[in-house]
Every structure is written in structure tokens, then in C-alpha cells.
């Protein structure tokens, strides 16, 4: 005979103000099999939990129903409390009186009735609950970090410094990401390369970090603590061990007119190239799409000049298989290009550039060696216009969100311009200035007050060229929507920060959720900002939303701590709420007929075929078997099995049936 305890929580006013909790407790107490019931203001509080524990001890409860909030919120709390009192934790169930009742209904008789119904259902279910034991799985204490921008770099270093191994993969020939392209950084105007390159070098030299540049994730399988990844190492056409990084090949390569990605197309590079002088690793790769040898079968000059014979034209991509326990996604973001903006000329005016291109112009290592010169004719622009929110905060462009970093970098750009071009005039067209952050507002004020940048509050409707000038048509909304036309020599668009083109595909590969804009989704917007919904996969930096450097670094360190926590355990425990195939002994009698519909149904490839042999070693039957490490407890197989041979622990057919019957029966 069951002895079930029902614990009704008020959740302060949350449930208490809408549901008559005392009545729920009282009615529950009269249900068949219920030995004890009580209501209390905060069941999750210490005294609340003590109430449950002492009731288990004193009344000898065999099952517990906590009628409170969502199990997603506090099921672990109450199951733990039960376990502490000596009851198997899986004998505890939660009825959700908050999200399913008080938050969605008006106060009233029917609302309390619904609450009672939910408790009744679970009381019946608990009668059929079975003691279950948590599943233990080992942990591979190596982390995979995907993306070598500042976020990936920071995460790798932090994890490596806790003593664990890290494999860092970067799709480009060098790590560094966008930060390596920046000139100076807000809000302190320190040189980006100067603060970044030491960390890049540290990554390359760290004994715990294996860096695969020019590499991408090919495929992944497994689960938290036990992933297996295949990494595609794209061919660099180079024997990296032999290459000394002397760079002779890059000076001799005859293909010199390829727009440099690092310089955002404002400078050129060769077919065999190192993206920038401080690159890590500082060894070249051959860009096969542009190399004359790969295109036409002739040239091989780099091979001839290479003093160590390091060039390998016949090198192929290789696949590296690695076992890892956790993944940090740090693939960053992209910015919209001017061809996204018909109103600003669809990218046809060379002097309408992006903020990232301006960074290259302002950078001492850039194509103009840090002088602000416009792309069309290398003249120093005397009038420059910065357009904020280009694409961002614009429903019509499909980007309703604020890109967050641009208000700050515009102020930085305008400031750098004023510092470099004396007597130049700069204008910023903005919607409103978003400068939340330590020393951020002060930074923007400095641009306006000390450097004399003209901030005009209004949008730019069109940019067109006339007599060698770019006419910027805007409006000043602080002067009663007065139209303002500025004849500019150069225009910088603070184009929206967006997810990478391949973000969606990567997310699907990893089974990580993503938002409407293809940024990877955090597990909880406030309380789990670096976790994803997939256990063991964490987020860092601008792959989650546009982020500046301080935020990216904080996130990366946060993600690293999560990985370290995971690696601090030798075994992981998982809820045993998984599918099992009926295996009555001897297995020949299992009702499973070996149709393997379940195998095709399982989205996690968790079901295997198992051969049952007789003593002579002959196969007498083939059955389905669920791999407890892989099963996520989704229940899809249960619905598919035509002989009802698979059941989900914790949600068995029997339990579901009694729940439905409880609802239909009068009490």
C-alpha cells in the first residue's frame, strides 16, 4: 500500500494568490494512498525542504508529490531532498501549479479544481513509480574549442591553465578573429594587436593546447563527457614541420592581386600567403582557388624558392578523429557588407565603406599604414560621415535588434579620424547613442566635447555621388526634422553585426539551438548565458549575439569555468529516464520482434541491434538494445514500437495510462 505525501507550495503570491492551496492540500489528503498532505509558503526554502524530509522519515512515505512550480525549475531540488531522507529520488514527482495553473488562469473555483486534478494525476502516477538508479558515464577531459577569435583564445587559455587539454580549431590560416583587424579599441584606445598578439602566441606555445588552424569541424557524435569529433584539416599545401616561416614564397608568388580578407579588400595578397605579419601560426597556406599552378598547371615558383622544400602541391585534406568531453563554441560573427544597402548605392561607391574597413585604414599595420585615405583615389577625406545602425534596428531589413558594438566603435572611429586628420570634419548620424558600460558614456562624450565630432540625430535616407562628392541625405530630428545634406568625401557604415553564414549548419551539426537570426541560443537568458540546451556544449563571444571584447572575454572565462567544473568529476551522473527494451529472461522470450522500426525512429542513433546466441554460438534472435549513454529519453521509439516492447523509464505505458484514468475518474 502506497504512502504518498503531497506538498503544496504557495510560491509566495505566485500560486497562493490564485489557487486555494489549503484546499488543494486538504483534498489531496483524502485521496486513496495519500498518507500526508500539507501546504507551505515556499517549499523550496530550507524549512520547506525540511518539511518533506521529516515527513518521509516520520510517516514512512513511499512516494512524494510536490505541487509547486515547473519541474524544469525545482525537480532536482526536491528529488535531492527526498534522496537525503532516504527515499529513492525518482519516487518524487512535481505537479506544476504555477506555469500550468496560477500564471495562466484567473483566480477562481475552476482554477483550484484544475490544481487538484494535477495533483490527483501525479498521485496515481507515483503509485507506479519505480526506484531507479542514476546512470554513470566517464568523462574525457579534453575540450574542443571551435573558433580562434578572442573568445576562443581566452576560453582555450583558461581551460588549459586548469590543467586540462584543449584542441582549438580555427577555419582561417591564423587565429585572432576580428580583434586582430581592429586598430585601437574602445573605451581605452589601446592598440588591439598589442594586447591580442601575446595571447595568440601563448596559445601556440601552451603545452596543453593543440592548435589546428585552417581546420573545421567535419562531424560530431556522442554526448556530454564523451564526444567524438572528426576535424577536417584543410590542406595548406605545406609541410609545416619543414616551413620556417621565412616568407620568401609570399614575396615571389606572381599572383599578387587577390583582395586580402584581413584588410577587408582594401589591400591585396598573394596566392601563397600569411594573412598578416603577426599571424599565428606564422606559416603560409596556398589559396588553391587563385594559385596559377592549381588553376593552370604551371608556376611552382614558391616550391623553387623555398629554402627548405616545404611546399607540397599534392597534399590532401586530412581528417583528425578526436575524443573530447566538452565543446566551447566561439565562432564569432560577421558584418553586413555595403551591397546589402540599396539606399547607399549597393556597394557601388568605393568610398562608402564598412566600419571594419575603417579599422584597417586606421590601423598602423593596414594598407595605408594608419593614414585615413579613401579607397577611390587615396585622398585624405576632409568631410567624413558615419552612419549608425546601418541595417540594425530595422524591421524592414530583417534585423530588428541593436548590434550593440557600433555606437561605441563609431565614437572611436570619429575620434581617431579627428586625431589623424586635423581640420577634418566628421559627422555621425545616429538614432540614439547606446553607450552602456564602464567608461563608455564618458568615451562618447569625449568624442563629442573634446574632439568636436558632430552628432546629428537622424537617419540617412540615401547616399549618392555627384561631382566627385558623396551626397549624404539625412535629417536632423532635433531641429524639427530638418533635412540635412552633407557633401562627404567618405562615408563609413556601421553595418549590422550578424551571424556567420555557416552558423545554422554548424548549430544543426552540434544539435545546438539558435535564434531567429541564427545566433546560437543560450540555455537561459539570465541564469545560463554560456550554456546551450545541449549538455556539454558552451558558448563564448559574438557567436551568441553581437558582443564587444570585454563581454566576449568574460563569456569565454565563464564557459571555461563550466568546462573545468565538468572535468573536475571523473564520472557524470545522468537521469535514468531512458528507454529500455523489454528483456524478460531468457531473452528469446522478449516481445521485441526485431523489426527495428525503433532504430530508424531514434533521432540520437541510440538503439543498437543485439544478437542473442545459444550455447553453440548460433544466432537465435536479434533484438533491439538501447545504449543508455546515448538515449536522451525523448520517447520517439516508444511510439514507434508495434509490439510495445520499448518503455520509457519514469514515463511507462502504465504510468501514462493511470494518469489519464485518474483524470477521467471522479474522486
Amino acid at each position, binding site marked *: 500500500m502506497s504512502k504518498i505525501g503531497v506538498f503544496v507550495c504557495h510560491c509566495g503570491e505566485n500560486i497562493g494568490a490564485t489557487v486555494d492551496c489549503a484546499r488543494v492540500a486538504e483534498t489531496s489528503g483524502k485521496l486513496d494512498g495519500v498518507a500526508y498532505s500539507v501546504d507551505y509558503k515556499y517549499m523550496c526554502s530550507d524549512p520547506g525542504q525540511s518539511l518533506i524530509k521529516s515527513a518521509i522519515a516520520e510517516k514512512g512515505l513511499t512516494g512524494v508529490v510536490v505541487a509547486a512550480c515547473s519541474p524544469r525549475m525545482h525537480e532536482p531540488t526536491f528529488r535531492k531532498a527526498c534522496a537525503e531522507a532516504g527515499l529513492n529520488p525518482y519516487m518524487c514527482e512535481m505537479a506544476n501549479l504555477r506555469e500550468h495553473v496560477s500564471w495562466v488562469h484567473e483566480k477562481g473555483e475552476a482554477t483550484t479544481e484544475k490544481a487538484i486534478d494535477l495533483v490527483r494525476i501525479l498521485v496515481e502516477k507515483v503509485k507506479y513509480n519505480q526506484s531507479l538508479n542514476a546512470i554513470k558515464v566517464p568523462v574525457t577531459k579534453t575540450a574542443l574549442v571551435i573558433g580562434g577569435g578572442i573568445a576562443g583564445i581566452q576560453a582555450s587559455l583558461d581551460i588549459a591553465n586548469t590543467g586540462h587539454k584543449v584542441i582549438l580549431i580555427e577555419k582561417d590560416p591564423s587565429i585572432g578573429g576580428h580583434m586582430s583587424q581592429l586598430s585601437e579599441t574602445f573605451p581605452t584606445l589601446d592598440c588591439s594587436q598589442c594586447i591580442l598578439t601575446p595571447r595568440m602566441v601563448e596559445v601556440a606555445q601552451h603545452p596543453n593546447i593543440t592548435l589546428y588552424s585552417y581546420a573545421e569541424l567535419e562531424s560530431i557524435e556522442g554526448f556530454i563527457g564523451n564526444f567524438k569529433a572528426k576535424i577536417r584539416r584543410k590542406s595548406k599545401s605545406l609541410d609545416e614541420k619543414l616551413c620556417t616561416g621565412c616568407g620568401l614564397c609570399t614575396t615571389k608568388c606572381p599572383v599578387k592581386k587577390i583582395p586580402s580578407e584581413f584588410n577587408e579588400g582594401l589591400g591585396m595578397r598573394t596566392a601563397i600567403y600569411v594573412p598578416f605579419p603577426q599571424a599565428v601560426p606564422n606559416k603560409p597556406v596556398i589559396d588553391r582557388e587563385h594559385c596559377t599552378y592549381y588553376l593552370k598547371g604551371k608556376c611552382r615558383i614558391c616550391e623553387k624558392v623555398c629554402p627548405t622544400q616545404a611546399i607540397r602541391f599534392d597534399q590532401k585534406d586530412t581528417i583528425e578523429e578526436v575524443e573530447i568531453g566538452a565543446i566551447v563554441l566561439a565562432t564569432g560573427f560577421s558584418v553586413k557588407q555595403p551591397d546589402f544597402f*540599396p*539606399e547607399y*548605392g*549597393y556597394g557601388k561607391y568605393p568610398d562608402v565603406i564598412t566600419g571594419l574597413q575603417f579599422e584597417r585604414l586606421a590601423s598602423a599595420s593596414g594598407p595605408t599604414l594608419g593614414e585615413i585615405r579613401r579607397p577611390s583615389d587615396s585622398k585624405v577625406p576632409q568631410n567624413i560621415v558615419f552612419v549608425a545602425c546601418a541595417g540594425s534596428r530595422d524591421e*524592414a531589413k530583417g534585423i530588428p535588434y541593436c548590434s550593440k558594438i557600433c555606437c561605441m566603435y563609431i565614437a572611436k572611429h570619429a575620434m581617431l579620424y579627428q586625431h589623424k586628420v586635423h581640420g577634418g570634419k566628421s559627422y555621425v548620424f545616429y538614432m540614439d547613442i547606446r553607450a552602456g558600460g564602464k567608461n563608455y558614456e564618458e568615451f562618447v562624450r569625449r568624442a563629442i566635447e573634446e574632439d568636436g565630432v558632430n552628432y546629428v540625430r537622424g537617419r540617412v535616407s*540615401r547616399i*549618392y*555621388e*555627384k*561631382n566627385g562628392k558623396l*551626397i549624404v541625405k539625412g535629417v536632423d530630428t532635433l531641429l524639427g526634422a530638418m533635412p540635412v545634406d552633407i557633401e562627404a568625401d567618405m562615408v563609413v557604415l556601421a553595418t549590422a553585426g550578424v551571424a556567420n553564414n555557416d552558423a545554422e549548419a554548424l548549430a544543426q551539426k552540434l544539435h545546438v539551438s539558435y535564434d531567429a537570426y541564427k545566433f546560437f541560443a543560450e540555455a537561459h537568458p539570465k541564469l545560463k548565458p554560456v550554456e546551450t540546451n545541449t549538455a556539454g556544449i558552451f558558448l563564448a563571444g559574438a557567436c551568441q549575439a553581437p558582443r564587444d571584447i570585454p563581454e566576449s572575454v568574460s563569456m569565454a572565462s565563464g564557459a571555461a569555468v563550466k568546462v573545468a567544473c565538468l572535468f573536475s568529476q571523473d564520472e557524470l551522473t545522468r537521469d535514468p529516464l531512458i528507454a529500455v527494451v523489454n528483456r524478460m529472461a531468457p531473452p528469446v522470450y522478449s516481445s521485441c520482434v526485431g523489426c527495428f522500426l525503433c532504430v530508424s525512429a531514434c533521432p540520437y542513433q541510440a538503439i543498437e541491434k543485439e544478437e542473442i546466441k545459444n550455447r553453440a554460438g548460433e544466432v537465435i534472435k536479434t533484438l533491439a538494445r538501447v545504449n543508455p549513454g546515448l538515449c536522451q529519453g525523448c520517447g520517439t521509439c516508444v511510439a514507434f514500437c508495434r509490439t510495445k516492447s520499448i518503455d520509457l523509464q519514469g514515463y511507462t505505458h502504465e504510468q501514462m495510462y493511470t494518469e489519464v484514468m485518474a483524470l477521467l475518474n471522479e474522486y
Partner: protein
Amino acid sequence: MTLGFYPGCSLKGSSREYAESVLAVAKAFDIAIEEIQDWNCCGATAAHNMNRELSLALPARILSLAEKQGLSEIVVPCAACYSRLTVTQHELAADQTLKARISEVNGMEYKGSVTILNIIQMLDKYITPRLEGKVVKPFNKKVACYYGCLLVRPHEILKFDREEDPQSMDELMLKAGATPIDWAFKTECCGAGLSVSRTHSVGKLSGLIVGDAKDRGAEAIIVACPMCHSNLDMRRKEINEYLGEKVDIPVLYVTQALGLAIGLDKKELGLNRHFVKVTV
């Protein structure tokens, strides 16, 4: 096949020559054009500023009439009418209750089965594919194709051409032998209805358009909207006052320019009806 025709008010009055040129070009290519019987005003800018239901009922009635007449496709040369009809079709397709209500208001069933073509779409669909060999007098002028506000906007509803930098008319004129110029005022506002109430403002807005076309060497401005035409043509006095010079670049409807290119008579195309003399 027969193509339905909704002229709208302008094409029966101040912009008669637009209708004439549309019909002349269609005739030259043996396209049967059938005017919608008993049509009414589309509501223009007035209706949708006053009453949403009215602004939908007026165009819906026109479309219902076309349905009743058995027309599956209609051409609407006026950009404003085209906009109102298409917006109505879009809004009623999205809201069945509203659709029923509007049918009730009009006392006439509205199905939403008619395909609406603007003039460029009509030309692209039925004429340009058959243009080869027909261009006997290439319109070899530098032309500024002016689209105005309503032909391409709002893009989400019309889904026609590129909203800020449209190309369709330019491509068409290229086929007629003209050289379209790249300019900045393709979709800027001409002043529209302010023509009557604030002629001065139209002088400025249209002046900017004509001024830019002139500065970039255009020899003709090509339009596809009666409102644009009357502002750029009829208000040339105010435009010239604004510009402080006498600019005599003529303004032609796209069908007029095309008509000339295929050798139609100037008078047949109504070119004699313009304020700025068409010397081309």
C-alpha cells in the same frame, strides 16, 4: 488572350496620352485590351487616409468587376492605382473576415483571382520578348528612368524590382535602344499630390529630380506614372524657377518612348499633349 485594362481617372483626363500610348503599343503587338466595365476610382491617396474599409472596398470593387468580366489578368498603368489595387489584394488575401466584409460592402463577391500587372511587368511579359527586329527607330538617347515612389514600394507587398535602386525600366529602355544613365533620384518623391496644394514644394522636389537628370546628361526622362509625369512636365515652370535656369528635357511615358522606337506615330502616342515639347 485578352488583357484587362484599368485606366483609372488620370488616364481618362490629364494623362490621356499615357492611355493612348499603352493602347497603341499593345495594338502594334496584337494584344487585345479590354477595359473593365463600370470601373470606379481606386481611392488614390485620399481614401486610405480617411477610412481603411473604404480604401479597400474601392479597389476590391474594381477587381470584382474584372473577375465578373472573366479577366484573369489586368494591366494598371498608373503607379498609384497599381499600388492601391495590389495592396488591397494583399490585405484581403491575409484576412478572410475582412475579405467577406468587403464583398458585403460592395454587394459583389471578391475572389482575389485576378493577376495585377504594372506597366513594366506587362511590357516585360508580353512585349520585350517579341521586340527583336521591331525596334526600327532605336530611341538612342541618354535617358533617366524615373520610377517614383509607388511603382516599387512597399517591396514586401509588390515584390517587384529592387526597391531603392530599381533596374527594370532601365533594362527595358536599353532594349529600346536608349542609354539609361546611373543617377540618384530614381525613387525620390516628385511631390505627388502637393502639385495642387503646394505647387512651390513640387517645384523644389521635382526640381531636384530634373536637375540631377540634367547634370548627368540625360536627354529625356522616362516615367511610368501619370502623377510623376504631370509634376515633372506640367510643373516645369516652377521647376525651372527652383533651378534658376531653363531646363527643357522632355518627360516621356515608357510606352511613348517604346512606341517611338518601334516606329509608331508621335500623334498616335499623344506626344503632342505635353507641356515640355518633345523634340526627340
